[in-house]
């Protein structure tokens, strides 16, 4: 059984929803990122999304755009990210790690090499924002061969007629994008998420995580009560930005600020 499945089963057994935290690899630099990553489980992250920075993050709002730019100043590539995940795995064997980003860096790396090395490093799944089911056929065989979950996105615009095509190849969990928009701008609304969960549950037995537009512990509490996990990204990345501006290159101080915020979020979902 995969780490993702085990973790969601465990959450179910505890009778609570999970917290999924997003941080961009290499933001603000690789050493600080490693400190942030390593401390996330203790701060209360149940699943960790590691953002693969991209020069043209079309689906992201300003916070994640800026975090990608900070990371790319250090010329971060997939090899660096795999090394970082492997280092994390030495101290944590259980918390699932999902790589999240855009297709081009993976395509350039080669789908088979990507899947093989990601799994070897200890990653469990991948979310590729601009690879819809219509185009995913070229990558899925490599992911299946090496055992990396493909986590598909569903959106408010995904019609019922479309859902089976998306969910047929989904594994691990399903990601519901709660707002029509880019990351970190609008706020997720309780009623529309409630409706969407009803629609999605009719098509899948996989756990459902909801993200985009969850910024505060209170919002995380409200939304996580409706689904299996709440995803927080932009708000965490903004703490990275503010803290690294305030503290300069002080990895411990920046990581402490991020972990403090994640603790508050985790308290919200518990």
């Amino acid at each position, binding site marked *: 059984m995969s780490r993702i499945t085990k973790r969601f089963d465990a959450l179910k057994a505890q009778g609570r929803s999970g917290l999924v935290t997003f941080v961009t690899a290499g933001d603000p630099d690789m050493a600080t990122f490693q400190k942030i990553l390593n401390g996330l489980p203790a701060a209360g992250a149940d699943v960790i999304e590691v953002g693969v920075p991209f*020069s*043209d993050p079309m689906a992201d709002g300003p916070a994640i755009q800026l975090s990608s730019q900070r990371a790319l100043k250090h010329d*971060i590539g*997939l090899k660096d990210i795999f090394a970082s995940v492997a280092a994390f795995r030495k101290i944590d064997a259980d918390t699932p790690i999902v790589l999240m980003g*855009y297709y081009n860096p993976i395509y350039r790396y080669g789908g088979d090499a990507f899947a093989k090395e990601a799994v070897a490093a200890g990653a469990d799944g991948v979310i590729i924002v*601009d690879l819809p089911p219509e185009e995913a056929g070229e990558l899925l065989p490599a992911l299946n061969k090496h055992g990396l979950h493909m986590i598909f996105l569903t*959106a*408010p615009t*995904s019609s019922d007629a479309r859902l089976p095509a998306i969910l047929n190849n989904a594994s691990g969990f399903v990601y519901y994008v709660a707002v029509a*928009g880019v990351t970190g701008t609008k706020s997720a609304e309780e009623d529309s998420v409630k409706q969407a969960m009803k629609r999605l549950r009719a098509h899948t037995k996989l756990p459902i995580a909801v993200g985009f537009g969850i910024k505060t512990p209170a919002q995380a509490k409200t939304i996580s009560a409706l689904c299996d996990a709440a995803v927080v990204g932009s708000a965490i990345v903004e703490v990275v930005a503010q803290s690294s501006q305030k503290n300069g290159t002080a990895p411990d101080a920046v990581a402490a600020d991020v972990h403090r915020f994640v603790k508050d979020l985790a308290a919200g979902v518990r």
Partner: protein
Amino acid sequence: MTVVQTPNTFRAGADENGHFGIFGGRYVAETLMPLILEVEKAYNAAKADPKFQADIKSYNVHYAGRPSAFYFAERLTQHLGGAKIYFKREELNHTGSHKINNCLGQILLALRMGKKRIIAETGAGQHGVATATVCARFGLKCVVYMGTKDIERQKPNVFRMKLLGAEVFPVEKGTGTLKDAMNEALRDWVANVDTTYYCIGTAAGPHPYPTMVRDFQSVIGDEVREQLQEAEGRLPDSVVACIGGGSNAIGLFHPFLDDASVKIIGVEAAGRGIPTGAHAASLTGGQPGVLHGNRTYLLQDKNGQIQDAHSISAGLDYPGIGPEHAWLNDVKRVQYVSATDDEALEAFQICSKLEGIIPALESAHAIAHVLKIAPPLPKDHLMVVCMSGRGDKDVFAIADALGTKM
């Protein structure tokens, strides 16, 4: 050994999933996917509707001024002493470039779809002006995203868009050029899915845009075929066009793809020279990758990060190229070459002085290549160049580049 199969026709693409060989496709976020499918469905229905085709034709004639003139460039021909050179005068269209062909088509489609708000990206401002113009004509709200660097070098077009009632949003991110403007337009679209139609300016982006834009621009090549038949009684021997995303080029090329005797040449922007890395020639200097909804040749680094393009011409300053061009390159039907900033500047001046036609800096790249290849060709070689736009918008930038005070 791999053998590149020559297809029976070069004009059949894209396939039903929007692919030209391995290129094209629909690489967009799930939130946009249903919209793109909706655009495709609406376009297929419109294409088959005689009323839609008749409307386009009527606006092309009465509003845009089509057919555009076809002109024997006599003094340039004499100057070069070789091939007989014709200009397809797209710069004489309403708004001063070929961009109006596409905007009329797409905005008539948006009206059919009941959309009230149109967004667009623009580099040189030609597509922005054409979009703002057609939106004004039909009373639609228009928002144009434009990089800050491009706003600086294309001021006359920025003012024109504002006069036409469009909102121009400056995009500072990245290099402040066309690619960044396109990212921002996509972000707008994903946040305004119900009301908004995205009018992409070039033959790129997710399916069906590359095919749809090509269809609307093919009026260029269709007219050239008729006009040259009338003038010379035969097909051209070669056709030449500049390429950024490649919409004027695919419009000129597509009707001739299956005429094996017609040599087809696309001219990319070599900027300061390909070896310097400061260029916009994605076929010459790029590798296949995925950006802005399609797979195509892209300027990128070893990690798959998109690199900044450079060209003196804002309209060619883009690190990608339309997917059909990527495919035509790989199947070797079209020859893709490049011209540097300096070569374009020289061609710009020669064309202005010899023909009394001030070309857009974009079109000057096509002329630059003509200057290279026309002289040794026989006098009965018929060469058609697409004069995709007029150069009034560029005079400030040219004065700067030539060190002239205006």
